[in-house]
């Protein structure tokens, strides 16, 4: 395969188109999540802490699913073939990306657990000194004579 888009054969172009479309969908969702205040909070949730967010899953898996359905629905053989190529290209992006993002998230969560465990094992202050919040009593002897202690 040449990396020059002008010299690729039509099937390779459609595969790359599918991969690009899926990637732009995924990263557009990530940019919206990071920058848009009206981004739906439900899409920021996770099923489990090791998994990607709902929005990321949808943006990653929806394009190949939609293209597969479109291929099933279309009646024209040539359109079916083209949609199949684009859908396969989207799949070539979607599944490895899901694998990479899930693994990265899982590694992050495990790292936070290690950090918490280290903090929990931190050495406690030795009980050599007794800390008392009670102020020691003081007695002031009354002064007889010129000066009188009032406090």
């Amino acid at each position: 395969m040449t990396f020059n888009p002008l010299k690729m054969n039509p099937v390779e172009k459609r595969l790359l188109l599918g991969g690009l479309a899926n990637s732009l969908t995924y990263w557009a969702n990530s940019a919206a999540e990071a920058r848009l205040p009206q981004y739906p909070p439900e899409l920021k949730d996770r099923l489990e802490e090791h998994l990607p967010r709902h929005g990321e899953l949808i943006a990653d898996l929806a394009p190949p699913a939609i293209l597969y359905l479109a291929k099933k629905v279309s009646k024209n053989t040539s359109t079916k073939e083209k949609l199949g190529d684009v859908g396969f290209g989207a799949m070539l992006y979607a599944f490895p990306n899901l694998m990479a993002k899930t693994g990265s998230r899982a590694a992050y969560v495990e790292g936070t657990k290690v950090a918490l465990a280290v903090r929990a094992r931190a050495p406690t202050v030795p009980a050599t000194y007794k800390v008392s919040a009670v102020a020691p009593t003081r007695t002031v002897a009354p002064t007889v004579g010129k000066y009188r202690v009032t406090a």
Partner: protein
Amino acid sequence: MDKVEQNLLIGAFATGAVDLGFEAYHSYYAGKGEPLTYFPYQTIHPAIPPYDDWIALAGFPLLLYLAGKGMKKQSLVEMAKGGAIYGVSELIGITMFRVILETQPALRYVVVR
């Protein structure tokens, strides 16, 4: 799925696995509170992906392609194509994301029409 499609998929997953290795290592230490700042987790500009992304997403498919051409194995060349489809798409997507983050500040107000 025919042999060519299988090779494309293997190549894409192999590239994804290399990317996963770099990202997981970085994420683990980020989770520990010790973010990695040395090569390859550096970048020449915040809008451009870091070196580990270039190595995994462009370098690895190129390596597969050169290995396939050198050993005259068409299967490796096809794997390289699959890896390149994943890698090039991811690089373009990440660059778009980073450019948006760099150029668009976080919005504090919602526009109501």
